[in-house]
């Protein structure tokens, strides 16, 4: 036994070797400790970043869109909750291959479909796409369920795990087609294009962006500020839990200057024809009505317009999508004659007492220009010329003043350029002059061109809004306001609206005498028994106006735009109106009676007692 196993001694060489061994072990442990310190303490941040990168997902939450109101507080655009159904895939996942989860989700969808008695809005491919692209987010099976279907679902107890009611805000326009061009509509936004955000998101929720009207031009304010949600996902990409949230900021509410009731009247006046009516408050530029006919129901754009509807709107020969009030350009015809008169007066080329004889035509070289009144107006002064809309008088004044004086006056009223109303797609119109003709036609300006412009014809083009701005400036004594469509802004519901100040674009430095003579002429147009716009008259209100009939298209077609501009009451104007009927007989015949209807709505107190009300 003893020979097989040697006893030890403490002085062995062994001992040194054993201690050396322990030293190696302890050094090994120290090395591990140092390395752990390096990655767990010194460089831990880097690993936290890696961890977040693979397990944390940012979801962009769009802000709730602000609402639109008219000046009386009527709702023009708001959001209503849409209750749909969504599946939470992390609760439906099946172990094993992906196909099993897809199968299971599909069977849950078909069970739900049986309960709500509606066919699902998604198919197997949509489920697969969702799993591939948006796994941690709820899978929406129905965006919105009818009330009965929702009731059936709730009655069934919603006992299936992973299924829940999913509520989203949906844009709604309670007044349908009213002021459709001004309000505009929203459409699905391309999330990446929403804005240049510093932070990038992994997922975007459906979001609406303005596509037309105020919805588009004021999108920045209406949209609010996006928030975000932080999700933790597991290794397969399923949502594990929420770990953080930044609440999105609600968009601003806007109060428009429109008055829904007057807008409604204006639109009903145009209901049988294509045309436009613009009503402006001459004291501040407020746009009280901005009507363009025909229109369309805004709600057909929510959540997205069907392709048939879109095609119908686009192919309609009456161009309902065209916002005639701001984007339709028309020769203003005789409604321009105040500008011709003022150009002459201001430049001293015409005096109110100047009398020209109108034989019913005007000869310029070997060309004959006709007055609309073939029999002629006879001798007329300036006031009478406006009242009777005498072309010959205007030819004289126009030729005496020259095109530059007329063009400058027109531009001073804001013609030939955008008014700056808070809408996209505004047209500039056109104020032609010598430079313009040279550039476009490479031809010289002739006196005939001046004659045409003097009576609002030729190449001259204006939008109904521009004509309303002009009328407002004549009404208020010469202040050109930028049309104010946005009256107020409020960041939070419940606060009061912060009013935006009116913007003055131009102040005319006119001699009162000159302005008065033009205004008196305009008053006669409506108030005199011989005025061209006399059918617009309503009892109890003194108003002023001007009719216009502008020819367009081929000469032999004899197609005419019918215009009328007006302001009232004459002494302290509250409304300035421009009305355009795309095709009519004449301003006096087609527009003036409609102006009367509008004025009755604008001045309800002037109405005679209702039928039967004044008996005795």
């Amino acid at each position, binding site marked *: 036994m003893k020979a097989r196993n040697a006893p030890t001694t403490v002085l062995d060489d062994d001992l040194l070797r054993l201690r050396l061994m322990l030293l190696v072990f302890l050094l090994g442990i120290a090395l591990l400790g140092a390395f752990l310190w390096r990655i767990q303490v010194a460089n831990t941040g880097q690993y936290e970043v890696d961890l977040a990168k693979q397990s944390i997902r940012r979801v962009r939450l769009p802000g709730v869109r602000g609402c639109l109101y008219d000046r009386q507080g009527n709702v023009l655009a708001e959001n209503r909750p849409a209750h749909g159904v969504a599946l939470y895939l992390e609760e439906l996942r099946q172990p094993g291959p992906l196909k099993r989860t897809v199968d299971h989700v599909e069977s849950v969808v078909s069970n739900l479909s049986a309960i709500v008695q509606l066919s699902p809005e998604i198919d197997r491919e949509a489920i697969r796409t969702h799993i591939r692209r948006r796994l941690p987010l709820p899978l929406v099976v129905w965006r919105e369920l009818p009330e009965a279907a929702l009731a059936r679902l709730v009655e069934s107890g919603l006992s299936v795990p992973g299924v829940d009611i999913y509520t989203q805000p949906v844009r709604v326009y309670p007044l349908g087609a009213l002021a459709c061009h001004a309000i505009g509509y929203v459409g699905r936004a391309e999330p990446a294009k929403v804005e240049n955000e510093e932070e990038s998101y992994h997922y975007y929720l459906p979001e609406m962006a303005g596509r037309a009207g105020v919805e588009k031009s004021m999108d920045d304010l209406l949209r609010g500020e996006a928030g975000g949600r932080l999700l933790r996902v*597991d290794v397969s990409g399923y949502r594990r839990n929420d770990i953080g949230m930044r609440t999105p900021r609600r968009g601003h509410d806007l109060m428009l200057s429109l008055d829904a009731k007057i807008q409604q009247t204006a639109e009903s006046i145009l209901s049988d024809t294509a045309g436009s009516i613009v009503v402006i408050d001459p004291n501040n530029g407020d746009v009280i009505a901005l009507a363009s006919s025909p229109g369309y129901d805004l709600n057909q754009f929510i959540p997205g317009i069907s392709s048939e509807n879109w095609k119908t709107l686009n192919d309609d020969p009456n161009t309902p999508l065209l916002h005639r009030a701001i984007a339709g350009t028309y020769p203003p015809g005789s409604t321009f004659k105040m500008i011709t008169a003022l150009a002459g007066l201001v430049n001293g080329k015409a005096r109110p007492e100047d009398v020209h004889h109108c034989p019913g035509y005007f000869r310029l070289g070997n060309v004959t220009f006709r007055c609309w009144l073939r029999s002629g107006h006879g001798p007329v002064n300036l006031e009478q010329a406006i009242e009777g809309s005498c072309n010959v008088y205007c030819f004289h004044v126009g030729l005496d003043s020259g095109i530059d004086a007329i063009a400058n006056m027109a531009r001073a009223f804001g013609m030939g350029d955008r008014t700056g109303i808070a809408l996209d797609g505004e047209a500039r119109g056109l104020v032609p002059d010598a430079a313009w003709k040279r550039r476009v036609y490479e031809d010289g300006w002739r006196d005939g061109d001046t004659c045409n412009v003097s009576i609002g014809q030729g190449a001259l083009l204006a939008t109904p809004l521009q004509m309303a701005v002009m009328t407002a400036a004549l009404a208020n004594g010469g202040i050109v306001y930028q049309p104010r469509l946005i009256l107020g802004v409020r960041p939070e519901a419940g606060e009061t609206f912060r009013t935006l100040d009116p913007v003055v674009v131009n102040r005319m430095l006119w001699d009162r005498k000159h302005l008065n003579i033009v205004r008196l002429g305009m008053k006669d147009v409506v108030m005199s028994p011989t005025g061209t716009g006399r059918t617009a008259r309503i009892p109890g209100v003194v108003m002023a106006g001007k009719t216009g009939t502008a020819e367009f298209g081929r000469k032999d077609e004899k197609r005419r735009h019918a215009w009328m501009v007006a302001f009232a009451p004459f002494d302290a104007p509250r409304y300035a109106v421009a009305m355009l009927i795309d095709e009519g007989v004449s301003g006096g015949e087609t527009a003036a009676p409609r102006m009367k209807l509008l004025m009755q709505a604008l001045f309800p107190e002037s109405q005679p007692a209702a039928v039967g009300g004044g008996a005795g």
Partner: protein
Amino acid sequence: MKHGEEKGSMLARLDWIFLFAVLALMGIGILFIYSASYRGDNEWMTELTRKQAVWAVAGLVAFALAVMTDYRQLADNAWWLFIVCLVLLVLVLFMGVKIYGSTRWLNLFGIQVQPSEFAKIGTLLVLAHYLSPPSRDMASAKTFFAVFGLMAIPFVLVLQQPDLGTALMLLPVTLALLFVGGVPLRYLVILGVIGLLLSPLGWYVLDDYQKERILVFLDPGRDPLGAGWNKIQSEIAVGSGGLGGKGYLMGTQNILGFLPRTVAPTDFIFSVIAEESGFAGAALVLGLYAVILGCGIRAAIRARDRLGRLLAAGITTSLFCHMFVNIAMTVGLAPITGLPLPLISYGGSFMISTMVGLGLVQSVYVRRIDR
């Protein structure tokens, strides 16, 4: 008595600090196996935790039996034990259970055992026994080659399973025995140089998956979703643990499944510990291992005879190598190997073989001479 007195009862002579460290590591193991297998559905105990607790108790029984067994009597039967181990290794190759592409387990009376774990102890025992007689000439080439020849048999058999990690563990243990046994240093130096020179040839011995692990170690971006996945995820788990950890049961790498469920309770248990308890917890584990290693070397120093000294030193070396390779792997300091963490990783055979080995260290220690 000729070699001094053994004073007091066996219980009194036991190294209680050593035992305390062992129990602490076993406790930590059970705690974090629970965390690694926890699925959050309020189960108070997971299947793996329950099993590991049973293995821990079995391990303690094996430990106690090993302490009570006189290592000298055991060494007398070393050859027989060695042969039994070799027979089991051969049996594995013919009737073993194949799991994850290698045949390591043998079904014995309804329990799956891993004969390579016990072969480590058998080999250690037979080598220590062979080197312990005073007549053994440590400076002779015959001794040197005989030792490597003995070691080569289980080495080759384990390599056939294939289980490179476990097979390689036989090398440092053998070297430690030669070193402590007093082989001239020049032998070991020459051996080391030859080994280094031949190591490139080892490349041709490796399986493709093993080559891949080494390549991934050198370049983790090589295959981040495949072979590199565990390494990357383990490092993220450890690194994001920070100083104090994320809290028990709160390690997201583990909860979210980035650290695969299959390896979290076994080879990568240290990642779970480091993630949830941070550097503080990781350092505590390292400290406990340091205590065991220190106590193991103390047992070797105070062993009453050469056999005891060799056994204690060899077993301590084996523990150190397992611990070092496993932790180095989880922190990205070494390539991925299938080596578990002693006393902590989930696994029955490894727990019992470790506890038998540690019991033998104490068997040596309680029979020390108090000088």
